[in-house]
């Protein structure tokens, strides 16, 4: 997690930058593809209901599903580990790697590993970790963090990538995406084939069969879980569904919502390690089930957010995310979903301001493939922040005074007159260009109308009153 400065100050540094513009361009494109793919689904509401029902059912039976899943994986010769928090998870993974003498690890995209800051920990233990998703690989080379959960380096241009490859890999500069892609393919192919271990995330686990489902478009998720001798899968504990058919339903809405594809290129279903007569595949399989704050979320006011399938559709339509990009959120989970997940996982201190980074426009809920009621959960968290007295004094005092006025018509009339009197020195022809005090922020960007002399109440009394 990055240094806790406020969302607003991070956002202010990003607004109007090429990074923010690149993200806006990119996610508008992705949102358009999503719309096409979902409207093709004539019955998209029915499919969403089905996906929502599956996820909510899974959450309300989570302990039993995890127990069943663990039994199945163990029967198949895999090992399941349980990590209460980030420290435990990192130590478990480092322990597995050290016991097996692994030095080089090929890694496919895993949000959980970002959440755990696992790469940094493993590197401190002398283990080399190479990200293999093209976007994550670029971010790792650049020493940068992902700015979008589906498209990690949306904030970089092809020129940035070309320069990075020239500097870091010693290849000739090119900004042709096809050639940049070839460079990465050649660099990473050897890593896949020589790595001692592969680390992957898990999109979904199937309790009934003990299967892990992993989707990728590039194929790196398959290579990481096929070529190395050892496979370690990191799984947020909520990422489970009862049956294979349930997984199939989720997969269809996941790909459509994320990138507008009908299915991702590779849906990889792993059920235990390589079997005796299999020609290839990893000989050892470890699944690390991570809590790290999730059971706290499940027992709290935002439990429903655990139904999230990490498609990123809510990011792509969020007016705030479109303006500032993922880096403004300060952690790996950004956008509307991140504003709920982050305070849940890491506490309201210092993340209480993320739920306020929303206009509550509701575009997120509208596109969510599992119908998560994001705005209402943002309100739940705001209520908690206010109750914990985290809001600025002017806002608390102002709201108290406003409430007093709004519950008493005489005081309401006085408040309107007062507003007119106080704004007089700053007004010209009914508008205010600059005003001190809390509304300063408003007039930094736009004019503020001055309250007119005659309110509607006044007019009604004058013209329609008894």
């Amino acid at each position, binding site marked *: 997690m990055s240094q806790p400065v406020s*969302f*607003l100050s991070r*956002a*202010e540094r990003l*607004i109007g930058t090429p990074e923010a513009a690149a993200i*806006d361009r990119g996610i508008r494109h992705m949102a358009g593809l999503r719309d096409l793919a979902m409207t093709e689904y004539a019955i998209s509401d029915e499919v969403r209901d089905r996906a929502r029902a599956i996820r909510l059912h899974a959450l309300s039976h989570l302990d039993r599903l995890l127990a069943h899943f663990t039994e199945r994986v163990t029967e198949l010769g895999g090992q399941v580990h349980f990590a209460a928090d980030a420290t435990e998870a990192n130590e478990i993974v480092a322990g597995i790697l050290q016991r097996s003498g692994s030095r080089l690890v090929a890694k496919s995209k895993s949000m959980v590993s970002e959440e755990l800051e696992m790469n940094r920990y493993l590197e401190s233990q002398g283990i080399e970790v190479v990200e293999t998703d093209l976007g994550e690989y670029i971010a790792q080379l650049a020493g940068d963090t992902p700015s979008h959960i589906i498209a990690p380096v949306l904030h970089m241009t092809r020129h940035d990538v070309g320069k990075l490859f020239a500097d870091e890999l010693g290849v000739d500069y090119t900004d042709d995406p096809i050639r940049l892609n070839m460079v990465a393919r050649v660099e990473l192919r050897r890593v896949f084939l020589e790595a001692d271990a592969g680390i992957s995330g898990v999109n979904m686990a199937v309790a009934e069969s003990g299967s892990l489902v992993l989707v990728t478009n590039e194929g790196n998720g398959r290579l990481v879980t096929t070529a190395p001798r050892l496979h370690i899968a990191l799984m947020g504990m909520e990422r489970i569904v009862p049956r294979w058919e349930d997984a199939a339903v989720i997969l269809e809405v996941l790909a459509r919502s994320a990138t507008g594809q009908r299915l991702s290129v590779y849906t990889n279903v792993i059920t235990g390690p390589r079997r005796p007569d299999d020609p290839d595949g990893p000989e050892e399989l470890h699944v690390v089930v991570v809590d790290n704050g999730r059971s706290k979320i499940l027992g709290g006011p935002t439990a429903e957010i655990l139904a999230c399938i990490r498609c990123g559709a809510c990011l792509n339509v969020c*007016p*705030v995310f*479109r*303006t*500032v990009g993922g880096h403004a959120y300060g952690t790996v989970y950004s956008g509307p979903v991140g504003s709920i997940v982050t305070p849940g996982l890491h506490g309201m201190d210092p993340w209480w301001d993320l739920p*306020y*980074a*929303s*206009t*509550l*426009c*509701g*575009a997120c809920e*509208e596109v969510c493939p599992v119908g998560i009621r994001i705005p209402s959960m943002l*309100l739940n*968290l*705001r*209520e*908690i*922040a*206010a*109750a914990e007295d985290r*809001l600025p004094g002017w*806002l*608390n005092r102002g*709201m108290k005074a*406003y*409430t007093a006025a*709004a*519950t008493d*018509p005489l005081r*309401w009339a006085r408040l*309107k007159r007062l*507003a007119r009197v106080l704004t007089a020195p700053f007004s010209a022809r009914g508008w205010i*260009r600059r005003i001190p005090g*809390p*509304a300063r*922020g*408003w007039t*930094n*960007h*736009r*004019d*503020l*109308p001055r309250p*007119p002399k*005659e*309110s*509607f*109440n*006044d*007019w*009604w009394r004058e013209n*329609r009153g008894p």
Partner: protein
Amino acid sequence: MEGPRVQLVVTCLVDAMAPRVGRAAVTVLERAGCRVEFPEGQTCCGQPALNTGHTDQAREMATHTLEVLDASEGPIVIPSGSCTEMMVHHYPRLFAGTDREEQANRVVARVRELTQFLADDLDTHIRATAGDRTLAFQYCCHGLRGLGLDGPADHLLYGVDRAEFDGDRECCGFGGLFSIEMPAVSGAIMDAKLDRLESSGAEVLSGGDISCLLHLEGGLRRRGSEIEVKHIAELLSGEVLS
């Protein structure tokens, strides 16, 4: 023809900042044959407090509003999608399990947004006019997603010369106190919208919520733009734009 008796709720912002919208609502409702009454003592629905997390204070304001409105009869009509949505969707939740639950449900069942009331309930023949000017219409978020007000608006705007306004279903960046708590973000969202508005060639901007419209109008004035801003009630009141 004796039309229905309606209770007009003008919202805090119309009362204090834009009474012309309330007057226009009176005019259009009367043109539609309604007998308009104005429940005395109305102030604010409480949404500002709900959105900042001051839920108890939101409940206090909502209680006041319920008391004022419960003393009246007939449909309650509001020229704001956002305040209507607050009452329709949040009041039942705010009072669930309290001794006001029944009152809240009783009042909320009477609440209608202005365009919804005109188009869906009255099936009025009245249509909006923007003179011979080209109109951009912003579908304000709470009304659009919470109440489905795009249908009524399009119905009432039939015949008006509409500009192609890219992003007219996207948030304008107002967000209530968001515009003051996160002014830079709010301002940047607004600027992007105003860029698209200006390139649409529209001469008039309209919408169903004065809150969003004042925010956008403030932005247009700061730019020195000539685009005029009108609430949809004003376009429906028969006021001829010069």
